[in-house]
Structure formats: C-alpha cells, structure tokens
C-alpha cells in the first residue's frame, strides 16, 4: 500500500470525460471489444458511483446494461473502510462508544446503547429501570430519525424533494432532544456503562412532549404526499421484490426483512432494555418490494412513536445509573472529597479496571436490522476481538440480484429503499 498517494501517478487528463469515479478498465469494454449478451445484443457498462448522487454512502456499482435494463451489477464497497474492529482492539471499552457513534450515523444512540448493553452483559451490571426507559426513548427517537432519513431520501431519489425537507424539520427536533441529553446532535456518545451519563432534564422532557405533540401532523402530511400517489406507487410497487426465502438466505434483518413478510424483530424476540413493557406491533409487508420497505418503515415510525409515548408516560422514578462504582464514573464533587472515588475515577479513565475474561454476544434492533456486538475479552483493557454484526454489510450483497432485470431508475430506488449506510457497510 502506498503511503503517499499524492505522488502516485494515477493522473488522468484533466479534460477526460467525467465518469463519476475511476474507470474500471477490466470491466469496461474489454480491449475495445463490446460486451455482447447471449442473444446478441450489445451491452454497455455504466459506472454508478462511488460519487454518484444516488449512492448516498459511498459504494460503486458497475452495471452492465442493455439499453436502460440492467443485466448485471458488480458492487464494490470499502470506500470508507475505517477499520473499526482494528481500532477497537487498542482502545479502552468506554472509548469504543465514540466508534459506534460513527457506524450507523443516522441512529447513533442505538449503536451506543447496543454497545453499552453488550459490555454491561459482560460485566454483569444491572441497569435500573429508569435508565432503561430513557434508553428506550432515545433509541426509538433514533429509529424515527433513521427511518425518516431513509424514507424521505427515497422520495428525493424518486424526484419529490419537498417531503424530505418537511420531515427533516422533525429530525432536527429529535437532534435537539439529543443535544439536551448529551450535548451533540449526530455522534452522540450518549450513555455510559451502567446507565446514562445524566438524567433527563426538565427541558428534555418538555422537548420530548412537544415532539409527541407536533410530530403526527407532519408525518401524516408526508404520508399523504407519497403513500397513495399513483406516480409513487407505480415507481415502487413490484420493484426489487425480496421473497422470504431470499431474505433468509441473504441474511436480511430489520425493516427490509419485515417488508418480505417475516416478523422478526430483536425487540420482540429477545427483549432488552425493558422492551417487553411496551405495547407495539411489528409492521410487515407482503412481497418485500420497494413499496413494502417504504411502508414498513413508515409503520415502524408510528410504532416507535407509540413506544416513546408509553415510555414518557410511565417513566419510573429512581436512579438513572447502576450502582457500580468500579465502572461508572463518580460525580465530580465526590472525586474531591472521597479518596475511593478518586481512585475509581483514575482507574476508570485509565482503563485499569479488571474486565472479566469471557465472551458475549448482544444484539439490538438497529435502524437497519440486527446490530450485534460480539465481544471477546481476555481481561485486558481493550477487547481481544470485537466483531460487529453490521446489518447493512450483510444484506447489501443481495443488491446485485435485486437489481437484475430492472431499469436504471428502479435500481436507484431499490438502493435507497434498502437504506444502506456507508458507515455501517464498510465499518
């Protein structure tokens, strides 16, 4: 691997045709001979990505096309490979939270909480009920934000830009709630092992209640603009269907799987963080086409909304973090007064707390499906091996099969309805 890319001589003529990305020589015209299909049609190669506007994250698809019909697609990923798993092997556990932030950046709280729960499982910490409820609220807000982005971007890719900006305002409100909770909008670094880093403030509760008030009309408006619009229906129904067998084979999970009609949801199958306390349904689709995916996400937004409402109504009193002094940072005042607290403080920050040797797998229902953390600890300050099960990475491999035989426009809609998040895809 070359260290200094600036000296690489990959230079092309400046006024070369603007293909969006590098020409992939071996897959384009082979030695000037056009690619010909079985029945003698001359095929073209279209290089979609890595910087094509519809590849929201960054991945490349080299499509072989017959006119506007796609014959085959070869996806290339790894354009923002950041080696999360390698970095995690030399970071103390609490610093890995910042890495999980950047994995599925549309719903970082879910990733944060998933990671915290994994570690809590390893350390054997029992999280108090209030903290669990706060986590649920944050996770469901994150799910709403995630699905809002996906669905509104699907609108953008099909040409309806305006709905995107309507729901974006609501997403902005969700970010304000995060900000009240942890001080950042997107990469939240929210929560700590054993609970939350701070309680829900009055302002945060006010904002959540305000959100509950103001969200439904906007969402209804968004649905009204697209759900029963024939142009949209025609664009999406029957496009990129995924059968149940195919979904199982390709390891689908999350909304994309449920669109195919399988009601697998980690929140229901393996409830974590008090999800068993809440009443909600699992929206499922029929044939797993783009319309189903869209509608399932819409349905999930409403379900999440229901959960948030229940959680904020029944928010239990009590502490917002576990009583685990060796893992949870003591309050700053304690650090001055209490010698023990000071020692713990230093030990926690330095990562010197002994971690039990062992292994744990914990999965949460992320924005895109089962988000799992497989943590193997050898007792050191950082994980021996941390394998993240990233749903996007697994189901995106079905994309070439899904876009076979459809038109270019369909391929793009399928891509955005799958909600492939590059950070999660490439890790």
């Amino acid at each position, binding site marked *: 691997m070359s260290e200094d890319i600036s000296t690489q001589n*990959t230079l092309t003529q*400046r006024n070369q045709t*603007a293909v969006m990305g590098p020409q992939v020589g071996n897959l384009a015209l082979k030695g000037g001979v056009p690619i010909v299909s079985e029945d003698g049609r001359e095929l073209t190669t279209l290089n979609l990505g890595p910087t094509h506007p519809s590849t929201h994250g960054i991945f490349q698809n080299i499509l072989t096309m017959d006119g506007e019909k796609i014959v085959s697609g070869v996806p290339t990923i790894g*354009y923002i490979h950041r080696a999360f798993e390698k970095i995690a092997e030399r970071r103390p556990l609490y610093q890995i939270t910042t890495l999980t932030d950047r994995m599925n950046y549309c719903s970082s709280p879910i990733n944060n909480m998933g990671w915290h729960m994994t570690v809590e499982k390893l350390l054997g910490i029992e999280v108090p009920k209030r903290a669990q409820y706060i986590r649920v609220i944050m996770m469901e807000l994150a799910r709403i934000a995630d699905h809002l982005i996906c669905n509104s971007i699907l609108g953008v890719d099909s040409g309806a830009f305006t709905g995107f900006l309507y729901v974006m305002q609501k997403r902005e409100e969700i970010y304000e709630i995060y900000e009240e909770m942890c001080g950042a*909008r997107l990469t939240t670094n929210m929560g700590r092992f054993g609970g939350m880093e701070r309680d829900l403030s009055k302002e945060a509760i006010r904002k959540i209640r305000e959100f509950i008030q103001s969200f439904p009309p906007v969402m209804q408006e968004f649905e009204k603009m697209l759900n029963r619009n024939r142009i949209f229906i025609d664009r999406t129904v029957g496009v990129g269907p995924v059968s149940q067998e195919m979904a199982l084979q390709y390891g689908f999970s999350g909304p994309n799987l449920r669109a195919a009609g399988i009601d697998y949801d980690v929140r229901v199958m393996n409830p974590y963080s008090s999800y068993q306390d809440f009443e909600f349904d699992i929206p499922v689709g029929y044939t797993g086409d783009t319309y189903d995916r869209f509608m399932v996400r819409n349905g999930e937004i409403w379900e999440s909304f229901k959960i948030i409402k229940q959680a904020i109504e029944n928010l239990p009193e009590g502490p917002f973090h576990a009583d685990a002094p060796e893992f949870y940072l003591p309050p700053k005042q304690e650090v001055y007064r209490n010698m023990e607290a000071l020692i713990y403080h230093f030990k926690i920050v330095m990562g010197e707390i002994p971690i039990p040797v062992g292994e744990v797998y914990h999965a949460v229902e992320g924005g895109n499906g089962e988000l799992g953390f497989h943590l193997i600890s050898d007792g050191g300050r950082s994980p021996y091996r941390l394998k993240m099960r990233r749903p996007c990475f697994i189901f995106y491999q079905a994309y070439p099969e899904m876009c076979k035989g459809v038109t270019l426009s369909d391929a793009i809609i399928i891509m955005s309805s799958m909600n492939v998040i590059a950070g999660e895809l490439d890790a």
Partner: protein
Amino acid sequence: MSERPNNIKLVDAPDGYGGSGFFATSFEKVIALARSNSLWPLPFATSCCGIEFMATMGATYDLARFGSERPSFSPRQSDMLLVMGTIAKKMAPIVRQTYIQMAEPRWVIAVGACASSGGIFDTYSVLQGIDRVVPVDVYVPGCPPRPEQILDGVMQLQEIVKNEPLRRRDSPEYQALLESYGIIK
C-alpha cells in the same frame, strides 16, 4: 407569508465610483462578488458529515440563503467541493479525480475532523486529511460540525472568493501549488 427578518446582512455593493445614474466599479470585484454569491456545491458526502450537510440544506439552516443550494453532482458545474466524511485510502484517488475534473475556479472545503485530519480514525485504511491529495481552502472542525459551523465554512470561503483576483488561476503560484499536488493542467 412569513415576515422577513430585517436584520439580514445583505451583500454590500463593491467599492466604486457612484454618480447620478451610474455606478462604476472594478470589474474584477463585481465578478468576485458574483462568484461568492453563487457557489454551487459538489457534496462529496461519505459519512456522518453528509447527514449534517443535509441539515444544512434543510429548512432550519438553509444553505440556499447564500445562493448555494443547487447541488451539482457533476464536477464540471460545481464551484466548491465539500468533502464531508472519512476519506479512506481507497477513496483518495477518487477525491482527487473529482477535483481534477472540476472546472476552474474551484475551491475545496474539508468538512469535519475526518476529512480534515483523519479524526479518530488513526488507522491503516484512512487518509489522514484530504490536504494530502487536493489543496484545501477551508477546514471546518467538528465531528460532525454543526450546520452553523458548515455555514461558517461556506461564509469563510465566500470571503476568500470575494478577495480573489480574477487572474489568480493563471498565476505561476497557483500552477506551482497544483504541481505540488501532482496535478497538471
């Protein structure tokens, strides 16, 4: 219709010679002013910062106020390359090619820690700052930066553009700069 806030700072007219019915100014300044108010972005969004850029484009912050809401995904048509998010070493040649394909005058904003310096991703696969492959005009810190900061970056770039002489792109200094990046015109 909503009332217009009165405190919006409009662009001041450039210095020039006013008279009854005419207003002469340095042509160069007018063009620079025009350019600065019509910076069409090429969003090179790879990760988190791209999501914040969406927020910047959105109703609450509205990049359109600065005349830069027309995202042109074709490098030919854009004026500023907004690199948002981590640039892996696999991606670096593509950033560079996109930059090469852009028509002059072109500017680059590195948005966020990852694009500016690699951020927390101090690993084998991540490029430690895009200024190793393309010249950068403005760095915006933050991970991701708030929309306000992205707007700050755009306004800073407007300032740069406003003060850029028309002939800068032909100057030997600029050629030398490009050459130091191995970009031949």
